[in-house]
C-alpha cells in the first residue's frame, strides 16, 4: 500500500534497539499484535510488561496513550486507562515511555483524537506537533478509534509527511461505500473488529469475523483481527479464517490488572505476559497451517 516504505529509515531509540521501519513487513508471517496501555499501572512496571510481550513474540505492539473518555473500550481497558492516568501518564510522558522501551518491534500509538489534536504549545497547528513527536521517538503508526475516515484528513496529511501509517478499524457494520472509503485511506494494516461492541476478552470467535474477512479479501493490505481474542486456540481460528494477524488487548490487560490487584512481583506478571504472548503467537502460526491452500499450488 505504501510506496514510502522504501524511503523510510529504520529508527533507533534511546535504548539502542533497532525497530523495523514498516508495519506491513511485520505481517510477512501471521502476526501477533498485542495491546497494553502505556503506564499501567505505573511507568517502570509497564516498561517491563511491554518488553515481555516483545520477548513472547510480538510482531507489532499497540501502545495505548490513555484518554479520560475511552468510548470504544470495555471495562477492562477502561480500568487500565484509569490506573495509567492516576499513575501520571501524559502525552509527553508517553513519548518518554516509548523512548525508554528496549524492544525491536514496530510500535503503534493507539489513542483518542483529542489528545492528538491538543498536543503542542498554544498556536501550534493541530495534529502536526503530535505526529512529529511520535515520529521522533520511533512510533510507526496510529490507531485512533474515534476518528472515522471522514474526519481524518488532517492526521492523514501529517502522517504522510512523516512517513507514519494510519491504521483504520473496519467494523462488522462497515460495508459498501464506507468500506471503500476506509480502505483507500488505510496504510500499515487494517484493524478488523471481530464483533460489534467494545473491547473485551470473550470465549468464542464470531461469525462476524469470517464475514468481515471475506469482505476484505479483495484489498491488498494486511488484515489484523481484534476484539475478544484471548487464547492461542482463538488466535489459530482467526488466522485459519484468513486473518494476517491477531490483535489482543483485554486478555493481556487482565494479566496486568490481576498482578496489580494481587500484589505480584513485576517479574512474575511479566513472565505471565510473556507466556501468554508466546501462546498467542504460536496459535497464530498454527492457524496458518490450517488454512486451505490456494488453488493451483
Amino acid at each position, binding site marked *: 500500500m505504501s510506496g514510502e516504505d522504501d524511503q523510510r529509515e529504520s529508527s533507533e531509540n534511546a535504548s539502542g534497539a533497532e525497530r523495523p521501519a514498516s508495519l506491513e513487513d511485520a505481517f510477512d508471517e501471521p502476526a501477533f499484535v498485542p495491546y497494553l496501555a502505556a503506564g499501567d499501572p505505573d511507568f517502570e512496571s509497564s516498561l517491563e510488561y511491554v518488553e515481555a510481550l516483545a520477548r513472547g513474540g510480538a510482531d507489532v505492539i499497540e501502545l495505548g496513550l490513555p484518554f479520560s473518555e475511552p468510548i470504544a473500550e470495555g471495562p477492562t481497558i477502561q480500568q487500565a486507562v484509569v490506573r495509567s492516568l492516576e499513575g501520571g501518564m501524559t502525552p509527553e510522558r508517553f513519548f518518554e515511555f516509548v523512548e525508554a522501551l528496549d524492544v525491536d518491534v514496530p510500535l503503534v500509538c493507539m489513542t483518542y483524537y483529542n489528545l492528538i489534536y491538543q498536543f503542542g504549545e498554544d498556536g501550534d497547528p493541530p495534529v502536526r506537533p503530535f505526529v512529529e513527536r511520535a515520529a521522533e521517538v520511533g512510533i510507526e503508526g496510529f490507531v485512533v478509534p474515534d476518528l*472515522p475516515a471522514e474526519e481524518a484528513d488532517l492526521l492523514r496529511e501529517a502522517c504522510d509527511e512523516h512517513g507514519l501509517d494510519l491504521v483504520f478499524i473496519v467494523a462488522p457494520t462497515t460495508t459498501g461505500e464506507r468500506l471503500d472509503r476506509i480502505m483507500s485511506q488505510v496504510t500499515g494494516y487494517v484493524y478488523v473488529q471481530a464483533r*460489534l461492541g467494545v473491547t473485551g476478552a470473550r470465549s468464542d470467535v464470531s461469525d462476524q469475523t469470517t464475514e468481515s474477512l471475506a469482505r476484505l479479501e479483495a484489498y491488498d493490505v494486511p488484515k489484523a483481527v481484534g476484539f475478544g481474542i484471548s487464547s492461542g486456540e482463538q488466535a489459530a481460528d482467526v488466522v485459519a479464517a484468513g486473518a494476517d494477524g491477531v490483535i489482543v488487548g483485554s486478555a493481556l490487560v487482565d494479566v496486568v490488572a490481576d498482578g496489580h490487584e494481587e500484589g505480584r512481583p513485576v517479574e512474575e506478571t511479566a513472565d505471565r505476559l510473556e507466556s501468554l504472548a508466546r501462546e498467542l503467537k504460536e496459535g497464530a502460526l498454527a492457524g496458518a497451517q490450517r488454512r486451505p491452500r490456494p488453488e493451483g499450488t
Partner: protein
Amino acid sequence: MSQSKFGDYGGQYVPEALMPAIEELTDAYERYVLENEDGFMDEFRERLRDFGGRPTPLQRADQLSERYDREVYLKREDLVHGGAHKLNNALGQVLLARYMGKERIIAETGAGQHGTATAMAAAHLDVPCEVYMGRRDINRQRPNVFRMRINGAEVNPVDIGRGTLKEAISETMRDWATTVETTHYVIGSVVGPAPFPAMVRDFQSVISEEARRQCEEKFGDLPGAVLACAGGGSNTMGAFANFLDDEEVDLYAVEAGGSSLEVDEEEGIAPHSASLSTGDEGVLHGARTKLLQDSHGQIMESHSVSSGLDYSGVGPELAYLVDEGRVTPVNVDDDAALEAFHRLSQDEGIIPALETAHAFGFLEKVAGPDADGGVELPGTVVVNVSGRGDKDLESVIEETDQRQLDNAPTMEVFDG
C-alpha cells in the same frame, strides 16, 4: 436545514462501528424530519400537542417585571408534560426510532429530566427503554429515577469517574456500539455526532417558534433579549433557533459558574461547567466543540449545583454562535442560582429547575438592585423556564442549608 458542521465545530468523531448507524440516522432525519416523509412531522406535532401539552404559555412575570423595571416574559417549558422542555426532543427521537424500525431505546441522563422524558415517550410509544445515569446524579435526583422506573424504563447506574453526565454519555455510547443494529440512542441535548446537534435543535425549536409568535400576539414586536440556561444547550438552542436571524434580539446563554471559575489543573477538576465561557476547542463524545479540558487534552470533571448543567462540553452550534458573536455566553455561580430559585418561587409562584434558576440569577445580576452594570438589558426580555424544580428539592434543601441566603425560607422545619 441539515448540518453536520457549524464552522469548524461539530462533525462525527465516533468509533467506526457506529458510523453506519449515524449514516442511517442522518438519512432518517433528512427524510422524516426535514422532508416530513410519511407525515412524520405532522404526527410529531400532534403528539406534542395532545400528549405533550403544547403550546406552552408565554407569561408576563408581574413581580419580576416590577423588580427589574422592564417587561419580563416567561416561556413556560416547565408546563410541558413531564415538567421540562426535554420531552420535545425525546418524543421526536423515540417517534423517529419507531419510523426507523428500531426495537429498543437507550438514553443518558444527568438531572434525570431527559431520562424521565425519554421513559415517558417510550412508554407512550411502546418501545423498551434503558437509561444510563451516573451514580452521583442518581443520588442527587431520586424523584426522577423513580419516575423513570414507574414508566417502565431500566435505570443503569454508572460508577466510573465522578458519576455524572459525562460518564453516563460514554457508557451509553458503549452500549450503542454493541447494539447498534436494533437500538436507537436518544441523545438528550444538542451534543454528540452529527446529525444529533441539528436534529435535537430542530425538535426543540418549537420553543422559539411559539415564543416568537406569542411575542407578536402579546406586544406586537420581538423581544429585546432571550435568556436561557446552557449545559449541553438544548433548551438554549430551542429558545434561540427562530431568533437567530433577528440581529436586534440579544441572545444570552447562561452557564453554571459553579463555586468558582478557577480550575484545579492538577486534580483535573473545574469547579464550574462554563465551557462556552472558558472552554477550549477539542473533541468529545463525537463532536468538535468547546470543552473543559486540561493542557494535555484530558477532559476535566465539571461542577454545578445543578446536575442538569454539570457537563464538560456544550453543543457545537452554540460554540460556533459564540465565536460568531451572535450568542453571548455569561455565567452565574451556585449561590446566585439558589437565590434566584427562591426568588422565582416566592415572587411568581413558579418553582424552577436549578438549571433554569441560573437564567434568573443572571437577570438579577445585571438588572437587580445590586446590578453590576456589566450588561444593559433591553426593555423586553424573554426567559426560558426550561423546567420545573420538583426534581431538585432534595438538593435545594441540602444546598440551602449550607448557605446564608437572604431570601431562603427558614430551614428549621425540615429538621422535623
